[in-house]
Protein backbone atom coordinates (compact mmCIF):
# COMPACT_ATOMS: atom_id res chain seq x y z
CA UNK A 1 0.00 0.00 0.00
CA UNK A 2 1.24 3.51 -0.78
CA UNK A 3 0.79 6.40 1.57
CA UNK A 4 0.71 9.89 0.10
CA UNK A 5 0.75 12.85 2.41
CA UNK A 6 0.43 16.15 0.58
CA UNK A 7 1.11 19.27 2.61
CA UNK A 8 -0.71 21.63 0.25
CA UNK A 9 -3.97 21.63 -1.67
CA UNK A 10 -2.20 21.85 -5.04
CA UNK A 11 -0.15 18.75 -4.16
CA UNK A 12 -3.27 16.92 -2.97
CA UNK A 13 -5.04 17.54 -6.30
CA UNK A 14 -1.95 16.57 -8.31
CA UNK A 15 -1.59 13.32 -6.33
CA UNK A 16 -5.28 12.48 -6.75
CA UNK A 17 -4.98 13.03 -10.50
CA UNK A 18 -1.89 10.83 -10.64
CA UNK A 19 -3.35 8.14 -8.35
CA UNK A 20 -7.12 8.15 -8.86
CA UNK A 21 -7.34 4.81 -7.00
CA UNK A 22 -5.90 6.34 -3.81
CA UNK A 23 -8.49 6.54 -1.03
CA UNK A 24 -8.55 9.95 0.68
CA UNK A 25 -8.32 9.80 4.45
CA UNK A 26 -9.26 12.85 6.53
CA UNK A 27 -10.35 12.10 10.12
CA UNK A 28 -10.19 8.39 9.34
CA UNK A 29 -13.28 7.61 11.42
CA UNK A 30 -14.86 5.74 8.51
CA UNK A 31 -11.75 4.70 6.57
CA UNK A 32 -9.84 3.22 9.51
CA UNK A 33 -12.77 1.06 10.60
CA UNK A 34 -12.78 -0.46 7.11
CA UNK A 35 -9.01 -1.00 7.18
CA UNK A 36 -8.97 -2.43 10.70
CA UNK A 37 -11.63 -4.96 9.75
CA UNK A 38 -10.14 -5.88 6.40
CA UNK A 39 -13.20 -4.62 4.61
CA UNK A 40 -11.08 -2.53 2.32
CA UNK A 41 -7.54 -2.92 1.01
CA UNK A 42 -6.93 0.17 -1.11
CA UNK A 43 -3.81 0.35 -3.27
CA UNK A 44 -3.00 3.67 -1.64
CA UNK A 45 -4.10 6.15 1.00
CA UNK A 46 -4.09 9.87 0.38
CA UNK A 47 -3.80 11.56 3.76
CA UNK A 48 -5.39 14.98 3.41
CA UNK A 49 -5.49 15.71 7.15
CA UNK A 50 -2.41 17.95 6.98
CA UNK A 51 -3.59 20.10 4.05
CA UNK A 52 -3.98 23.52 5.67
CA UNK A 53 -6.45 24.87 3.10
CA UNK A 54 -8.99 22.16 3.95
CA UNK A 55 -9.09 23.19 7.60
CA UNK A 56 -10.10 26.78 6.89
CA UNK A 57 -13.45 28.50 6.60
CA UNK A 58 -14.37 32.02 5.58
CA UNK A 59 -17.29 34.23 4.72
CA UNK A 60 -17.67 36.06 1.42
CA UNK A 61 -20.60 37.38 -0.64
CA UNK A 62 -23.06 36.45 2.08
CA UNK A 63 -21.98 32.79 2.03
CA UNK A 64 -19.90 30.61 4.28
CA UNK A 65 -17.32 28.45 2.59
CA UNK A 66 -16.26 25.75 5.03
CA UNK A 67 -13.24 23.58 4.21
CA UNK A 68 -13.93 19.84 3.97
CA UNK A 69 -11.40 19.18 6.73
CA UNK A 70 -13.08 21.23 9.47
CA UNK A 71 -13.91 18.83 12.33
CA UNK A 72 -17.27 18.56 14.05
CA UNK A 73 -15.72 19.92 17.24
CA UNK A 74 -14.58 23.05 15.42
CA UNK A 75 -17.92 23.40 13.64
CA UNK A 76 -19.72 23.49 16.97
CA UNK A 77 -17.21 25.84 18.54
CA UNK A 78 -16.57 28.23 15.67
CA UNK A 79 -19.72 28.11 13.54
CA UNK A 80 -22.47 27.22 16.01
CA UNK A 81 -24.27 30.58 15.89
CA UNK A 82 -24.03 30.86 12.10
CA UNK A 83 -25.03 27.28 11.31
CA UNK A 84 -27.20 26.22 14.26
CA UNK A 85 -28.85 23.25 12.50
CA UNK A 86 -25.55 21.78 11.41
CA UNK A 87 -24.05 22.42 14.84
CA UNK A 88 -26.95 20.56 16.48
CA UNK A 89 -26.31 17.61 14.19
CA UNK A 90 -22.56 17.82 14.78
CA UNK A 91 -23.11 17.60 18.55
CA UNK A 92 -24.85 14.26 18.08
CA UNK A 93 -22.01 12.68 16.10
CA UNK A 94 -20.28 9.84 17.95
CA UNK A 95 -18.28 10.96 20.96
CA UNK A 96 -15.78 13.74 21.69
CA UNK A 97 -13.05 11.52 20.22
CA UNK A 98 -15.02 11.05 16.99
CA UNK A 99 -16.01 14.73 16.76
CA UNK A 100 -12.40 15.84 17.19
CA UNK A 101 -11.35 13.82 14.14
CA UNK A 102 -14.45 13.43 11.97
CA UNK A 103 -15.09 15.98 9.24
CA UNK A 104 -18.05 17.04 7.12
CA UNK A 105 -15.89 16.30 4.06
CA UNK A 106 -15.61 12.72 5.28
CA UNK A 107 -19.34 12.53 5.96
CA UNK A 108 -20.00 13.68 2.38
CA UNK A 109 -17.28 11.37 1.04
CA UNK A 110 -18.90 8.37 2.71
CA UNK A 111 -22.29 9.57 1.42
CA UNK A 112 -24.14 7.36 3.89
CA UNK A 113 -27.91 7.94 3.93
CA UNK A 114 -27.48 8.18 7.72
CA UNK A 115 -24.75 10.86 7.71
CA UNK A 116 -25.80 13.47 10.25
CA UNK A 117 -24.39 16.49 8.44
CA UNK A 118 -26.56 15.87 5.40
CA UNK A 119 -30.09 16.79 6.57
CA UNK A 120 -29.16 20.23 7.96
CA UNK A 121 -27.03 20.99 4.91
CA UNK A 122 -29.91 19.99 2.63
CA UNK A 123 -32.28 22.16 4.65
CA UNK A 124 -29.85 25.07 4.29
CA UNK A 125 -29.61 24.42 0.53
CA UNK A 126 -25.87 23.96 0.71
CA UNK A 127 -23.63 23.13 -2.23
CA UNK A 128 -20.56 20.92 -2.31
CA UNK A 129 -17.39 22.22 -3.92
CA UNK A 130 -15.54 19.51 -5.86
CA UNK A 131 -12.06 20.10 -7.20
CA UNK A 132 -9.52 18.39 -9.43
CA UNK A 133 -6.60 19.50 -11.56
CA UNK A 134 -9.26 20.00 -14.26
CA UNK A 135 -10.99 22.69 -12.24
CA UNK A 136 -13.63 23.30 -9.59
CA UNK A 137 -17.39 22.72 -9.69
CA UNK A 138 -20.13 23.59 -7.26
CA UNK A 139 -22.82 20.90 -6.95
CA UNK A 140 -26.09 21.56 -5.09
CA UNK A 141 -26.19 19.00 -2.29
CA UNK A 142 -29.46 17.47 -3.47
CA UNK A 143 -27.71 16.59 -6.73
CA UNK A 144 -24.58 15.25 -5.02
CA UNK A 145 -25.89 11.92 -3.72
CA UNK A 146 -26.67 9.26 -6.33
CA UNK A 147 -27.37 6.21 -4.15
CA UNK A 148 -26.45 4.57 -0.85
CA UNK A 149 -22.79 5.53 -0.29
CA UNK A 150 -22.55 6.86 -3.83
CA UNK A 151 -22.12 10.39 -5.12
CA UNK A 152 -21.14 12.33 -8.24
CA UNK A 153 -17.55 12.67 -6.97
CA UNK A 154 -15.20 11.66 -9.81
CA UNK A 155 -12.11 9.49 -9.28
CA UNK A 156 -9.71 12.38 -9.73
CA UNK A 157 -11.72 14.78 -7.57
CA UNK A 158 -11.58 15.78 -3.94
CA UNK A 159 -14.21 17.57 -1.89
CA UNK A 160 -12.75 20.96 -1.09
CA UNK A 161 -15.58 22.60 0.86
CA UNK A 162 -19.27 23.09 1.35
CA UNK A 163 -20.88 26.43 0.67
CA UNK A 164 -23.98 27.60 2.48
CA UNK A 165 -25.65 30.79 3.59
CA UNK A 166 -25.45 31.49 7.31
CA UNK A 167 -28.79 30.44 8.79
CA UNK A 168 -31.36 33.03 7.69
CA UNK A 169 -33.63 32.09 10.61
CA UNK A 170 -34.35 29.33 13.13
CA UNK A 171 -33.07 25.84 12.41
CA UNK A 172 -33.67 22.49 14.10
CA UNK A 173 -32.31 18.97 13.83
CA UNK A 174 -33.78 15.77 15.29
CA UNK A 175 -32.32 12.28 15.30
CA UNK A 176 -33.76 9.01 16.55
CA UNK A 177 -31.43 6.31 17.83
CA UNK A 178 -31.14 3.78 20.60
CA UNK A 179 -29.29 6.13 22.92
CA UNK A 180 -28.08 9.71 23.04
CA UNK A 181 -24.41 9.26 22.26
CA UNK A 182 -22.57 7.12 19.73
CA UNK A 183 -25.51 6.25 17.61
CA UNK A 184 -26.16 6.01 13.90
CA UNK A 185 -29.48 7.64 13.09
CA UNK A 186 -32.44 5.32 12.64
CA UNK A 187 -34.06 8.36 11.08
CA UNK A 188 -33.31 12.07 11.22
CA UNK A 189 -34.84 15.33 10.11
CA UNK A 190 -33.73 18.94 9.76
CA UNK A 191 -35.65 22.13 9.09
CA UNK A 192 -34.53 25.66 8.30
CA UNK A 193 -36.78 28.73 8.15
CA UNK A 194 -36.02 31.83 6.10
CA UNK A 195 -38.52 34.51 7.15
CA UNK A 196 -37.10 37.20 4.88
CA UNK A 197 -37.48 35.21 1.68
CA UNK A 198 -40.46 33.17 2.88
CA UNK A 199 -38.60 29.92 2.29
CA UNK A 200 -38.65 26.61 4.14
CA UNK A 201 -35.83 24.05 3.87
CA UNK A 202 -35.93 20.40 4.92
CA UNK A 203 -33.63 17.39 5.00
CA UNK A 204 -34.42 13.73 5.66
CA UNK A 205 -31.78 11.25 6.83
CA UNK A 206 -31.72 7.45 7.04
CA UNK A 207 -35.11 7.05 5.43
CA UNK A 208 -34.31 6.75 1.72
CA UNK A 209 -31.42 5.47 -0.45
CA UNK A 210 -29.90 8.93 -0.13
CA UNK A 211 -30.39 11.87 2.17
CA UNK A 212 -33.07 13.99 0.49
CA UNK A 213 -35.26 17.06 0.80
CA UNK A 214 -38.99 16.86 1.38
CA UNK A 215 -39.91 19.17 -1.49
CA UNK A 216 -43.66 18.69 -1.16
CA UNK A 217 -43.61 19.65 2.52
CA UNK A 218 -41.47 22.71 1.81
CA UNK A 219 -43.84 23.99 -0.91
CA UNK A 220 -46.94 23.31 1.15
CA UNK A 221 -45.66 25.18 4.18
CA UNK A 222 -44.33 28.11 2.16
CA UNK A 223 -47.73 28.51 0.52
CA UNK A 224 -49.64 28.21 3.81
CA UNK A 225 -47.44 30.72 5.60
CA UNK A 226 -47.53 33.21 2.74
CA UNK A 227 -51.32 32.97 2.36
CA UNK A 228 -51.87 33.56 6.07
CA UNK A 229 -49.31 36.38 6.28
CA UNK A 230 -47.61 34.41 9.01
CA UNK A 231 -44.03 35.40 8.17
CA UNK A 232 -44.87 39.04 8.85
CA UNK A 233 -47.00 38.36 11.91
CA UNK A 234 -46.10 34.96 13.31
CA UNK A 235 -48.87 33.22 15.22
CA UNK A 236 -48.87 29.66 16.55
CA UNK A 237 -49.02 27.13 13.70
CA UNK A 238 -52.46 25.51 13.39
CA UNK A 239 -52.53 21.77 14.19
CA UNK A 240 -53.76 20.76 10.72
CA UNK A 241 -50.81 22.58 9.11
CA UNK A 242 -48.37 20.72 11.35
CA UNK A 243 -50.13 17.44 10.55
CA UNK A 244 -50.07 18.01 6.82
CA UNK A 245 -46.42 19.06 6.93
CA UNK A 246 -45.50 15.87 8.80
CA UNK A 247 -47.54 13.78 6.36
CA UNK A 248 -45.79 15.32 3.36
CA UNK A 249 -42.34 14.82 4.93
CA UNK A 250 -43.16 11.15 5.42
CA UNK A 251 -44.45 10.91 1.86
CA UNK A 252 -41.06 12.07 0.57
CA UNK A 253 -39.23 9.25 2.31
CA UNK A 254 -38.77 5.72 1.00
CA UNK A 255 -37.42 3.85 4.01
CA UNK A 256 -36.48 0.20 4.21
CA UNK A 257 -36.46 -2.43 6.96
CA UNK A 258 -32.98 -3.04 8.33
CA UNK A 259 -31.20 -3.97 11.55
CA UNK A 260 -31.72 -0.51 13.00
CA UNK A 261 -35.44 -0.22 12.38
CA UNK A 262 -38.39 -1.08 10.20
CA UNK A 263 -39.70 1.08 7.39
CA UNK A 264 -42.95 1.58 9.30
CA UNK A 265 -41.11 2.74 12.40
CA UNK A 266 -39.00 5.13 10.35
CA UNK A 267 -42.13 6.66 8.79
CA UNK A 268 -43.68 7.10 12.20
CA UNK A 269 -40.48 8.59 13.66
CA UNK A 270 -40.16 10.98 10.72
CA UNK A 271 -43.68 12.29 11.20
CA UNK A 272 -43.02 12.88 14.90
CA UNK A 273 -39.67 14.57 14.22
CA UNK A 274 -41.05 16.72 11.41
CA UNK A 275 -43.82 18.00 13.67
CA UNK A 276 -41.48 18.59 16.56
CA UNK A 277 -38.67 20.21 14.61
CA UNK A 278 -41.07 22.58 12.88
CA UNK A 279 -42.86 23.42 16.16
CA UNK A 280 -39.56 24.20 17.86
CA UNK A 281 -38.23 26.26 14.96
CA UNK A 282 -41.51 28.15 14.76
CA UNK A 283 -41.43 28.80 18.52
CA UNK A 284 -37.93 30.26 18.04
CA UNK A 285 -39.26 32.50 15.31
CA UNK A 286 -42.14 33.74 17.48
CA UNK A 287 -39.73 34.57 20.30
CA UNK A 288 -37.69 36.88 18.06
Amino acid at each position, binding site marked *: *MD*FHYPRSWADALALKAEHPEAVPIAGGTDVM*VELNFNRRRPAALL*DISAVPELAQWDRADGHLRVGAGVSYTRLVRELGPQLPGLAMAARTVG*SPQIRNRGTVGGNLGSASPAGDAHPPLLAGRASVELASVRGTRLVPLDEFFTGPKRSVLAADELISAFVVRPAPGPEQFCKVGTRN*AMVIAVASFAVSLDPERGRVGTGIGSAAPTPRRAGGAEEFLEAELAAAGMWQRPRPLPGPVLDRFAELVTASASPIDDVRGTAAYRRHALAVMARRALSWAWADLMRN
Partner: protein
Amino acid sequence: MQIRLNVNGVPYETDDVWEGESLLYVLRERLGLWGSKNACEQGECGSCSVLLDGELVCSCLVAAGQAHGRQVVTVEGLGDDGRMSAVQEAFVAAGAVQCGFCTPGLVVATEDLLRHNPAPSDLEIREALAGNLCRCTGYEKVLDAVRAAAGMGR
Protein backbone atom coordinates in the same frame (compact mmCIF):
# COMPACT_ATOMS: atom_id res chain seq x y z
CA MET B 1 7.19 3.24 5.61
CA GLN B 2 9.24 4.96 8.25
CA ILE B 3 7.54 6.98 10.94
CA ARG B 4 8.89 9.49 13.39
CA LEU B 5 6.74 10.65 16.25
CA ASN B 6 7.06 11.93 19.79
CA VAL B 7 5.32 9.92 22.47
CA ASN B 8 5.21 11.23 26.02
CA GLY B 9 8.13 13.53 25.30
CA VAL B 10 10.31 10.78 23.84
CA PRO B 11 11.19 10.83 20.14
CA TYR B 12 10.65 7.49 18.39
CA GLU B 13 11.51 6.28 14.95
CA THR B 14 10.07 3.08 13.59
CA ASP B 15 10.65 1.31 10.28
CA ASP B 16 8.59 -1.07 8.20
CA VAL B 17 5.30 0.35 9.36
CA TRP B 18 2.48 -0.96 7.17
CA GLU B 19 0.69 2.01 5.60
CA GLY B 20 -2.73 0.79 6.69
CA GLU B 21 -1.97 0.20 10.34
CA SER B 22 -3.23 2.36 13.17
CA LEU B 23 -1.45 4.56 15.66
CA LEU B 24 -2.74 2.17 18.33
CA TYR B 25 -0.91 -0.71 16.65
CA VAL B 26 2.28 1.34 16.46
CA LEU B 27 2.05 2.25 20.15
CA ARG B 28 1.39 -1.28 21.37
CA GLU B 29 3.11 -3.57 18.92
CA ARG B 30 6.06 -1.47 17.81
CA LEU B 31 6.81 0.81 20.75
CA GLY B 32 5.76 -1.55 23.54
CA LEU B 33 3.46 1.02 25.12
CA TRP B 34 0.62 -1.22 26.25
CA GLY B 35 -1.28 1.34 28.28
CA SER B 36 -3.60 2.19 25.40
CA LYS B 37 -5.93 -0.77 25.04
CA ASN B 38 -7.25 -2.45 21.95
CA ALA B 39 -10.83 -3.52 22.48
CA CYS B 40 -12.92 -2.73 19.43
CA GLU B 41 -10.75 -1.10 16.75
CA GLN B 42 -13.79 0.80 15.54
CA GLY B 43 -13.97 3.92 17.66
CA GLU B 44 -16.80 2.61 19.81
CA CYS B 45 -15.14 2.00 23.17
CA GLY B 46 -12.53 4.71 23.74
CA SER B 47 -10.09 2.36 25.50
CA CYS B 48 -7.40 3.41 23.00
CA SER B 49 -7.86 7.14 23.73
CA VAL B 50 -4.71 9.27 23.49
CA LEU B 51 -3.94 12.94 23.00
CA LEU B 52 -2.70 13.71 19.49
CA ASP B 53 -1.18 17.18 19.40
CA GLY B 54 -3.24 17.83 22.54
CA GLU B 55 -6.51 16.57 21.07
CA LEU B 56 -8.44 13.58 22.41
CA VAL B 57 -8.68 10.88 19.72
CA CYS B 58 -9.16 7.15 19.36
CA SER B 59 -5.71 5.94 18.35
CA CYS B 60 -7.29 2.97 16.56
CA LEU B 61 -8.77 5.41 14.04
CA VAL B 62 -5.59 7.35 13.32
CA ALA B 63 -3.51 5.93 10.48
CA ALA B 64 0.10 5.48 11.53
CA GLY B 65 1.27 7.85 8.81
CA GLN B 66 -1.10 10.54 10.09
CA ALA B 67 0.85 10.59 13.37
CA HIS B 68 4.16 11.21 11.61
CA GLY B 69 5.88 14.25 13.08
CA ARG B 70 3.23 14.66 15.78
CA GLN B 71 3.12 14.67 19.58
CA VAL B 72 1.27 11.85 21.27
CA VAL B 73 0.46 11.57 24.97
CA THR B 74 -0.69 8.18 26.24
CA VAL B 75 -1.80 7.13 29.71
CA GLU B 76 1.84 6.31 30.47
CA GLY B 77 2.75 9.95 29.95
CA LEU B 78 0.30 11.54 32.37
CA GLY B 79 2.12 11.43 35.71
CA ASP B 80 5.41 13.04 36.64
CA ASP B 81 8.56 11.05 37.44
CA GLY B 82 6.74 7.84 38.13
CA ARG B 83 4.08 9.56 40.24
CA MET B 84 0.49 9.29 39.22
CA SER B 85 -1.45 12.31 37.98
CA ALA B 86 -4.29 13.75 40.08
CA VAL B 87 -6.81 12.03 37.83
CA GLN B 88 -5.06 8.68 38.20
CA GLU B 89 -4.93 9.14 41.99
CA ALA B 90 -8.63 9.95 42.03
CA PHE B 91 -9.49 6.80 40.04
CA VAL B 92 -7.57 4.67 42.54
CA ALA B 93 -9.01 6.44 45.57
CA ALA B 94 -12.58 6.17 44.28
CA GLY B 95 -12.19 2.50 43.35
CA ALA B 96 -13.20 3.39 39.82
CA VAL B 97 -11.43 0.30 38.50
CA GLN B 98 -12.79 -3.21 38.17
CA CYS B 99 -11.00 -5.25 35.51
CA GLY B 100 -9.22 -2.04 34.51
CA PHE B 101 -9.40 -2.51 30.77
CA CYS B 102 -11.31 0.71 30.15
CA THR B 103 -9.37 2.68 32.76
CA PRO B 104 -6.52 4.09 30.64
CA GLY B 105 -8.98 5.44 28.11
CA LEU B 106 -11.21 6.91 30.81
CA VAL B 107 -8.23 8.50 32.53
CA VAL B 108 -6.98 10.11 29.32
CA ALA B 109 -10.50 11.32 28.46
CA THR B 110 -10.89 12.74 31.98
CA GLU B 111 -7.54 14.55 31.72
CA ASP B 112 -8.76 16.07 28.48
CA LEU B 113 -12.08 17.10 30.01
CA LEU B 114 -10.52 18.77 33.05
CA ARG B 115 -7.97 20.61 30.94
CA HIS B 116 -10.78 22.26 29.02
CA ASN B 117 -13.32 22.45 31.82
CA PRO B 118 -11.86 22.33 35.35
CA ALA B 119 -15.27 22.29 37.05
CA PRO B 120 -17.62 20.20 34.90
CA SER B 121 -21.24 19.54 35.78
CA ASP B 122 -22.42 15.92 35.97
CA LEU B 123 -24.01 16.29 32.56
CA GLU B 124 -20.76 17.61 31.12
CA ILE B 125 -18.86 14.69 32.64
CA ARG B 126 -21.32 12.22 31.12
CA GLU B 127 -21.05 13.87 27.72
CA ALA B 128 -17.27 14.01 27.84
CA LEU B 129 -17.03 10.31 28.70
CA ALA B 130 -19.80 9.13 26.36
CA GLY B 131 -17.21 7.63 24.03
CA ASN B 132 -15.67 5.44 26.72
CA LEU B 133 -17.34 2.13 27.46
CA CYS B 134 -16.79 0.07 30.60
CA ARG B 135 -17.88 -3.54 30.09
CA CYS B 136 -17.80 -4.01 33.88
CA THR B 137 -20.24 -1.08 33.93
CA GLY B 138 -18.72 0.62 36.96
CA TYR B 139 -19.77 4.06 35.86
CA GLU B 140 -20.86 5.44 39.24
CA LYS B 141 -17.37 5.17 40.71
CA VAL B 142 -15.94 6.70 37.57
CA LEU B 143 -18.20 9.70 38.04
CA ASP B 144 -17.06 9.88 41.67
CA ALA B 145 -13.45 9.85 40.55
CA VAL B 146 -13.95 12.60 38.01
CA ARG B 147 -15.79 14.76 40.54
CA ALA B 148 -13.00 14.16 43.05
CA ALA B 149 -10.31 14.97 40.52
CA ALA B 150 -12.12 18.17 39.68
CA GLY B 151 -11.85 19.05 43.35
CA MET B 152 -15.58 18.86 43.89
CA GLY B 153 -15.68 15.80 46.07
CA ARG B 154 -19.20 14.57 46.63
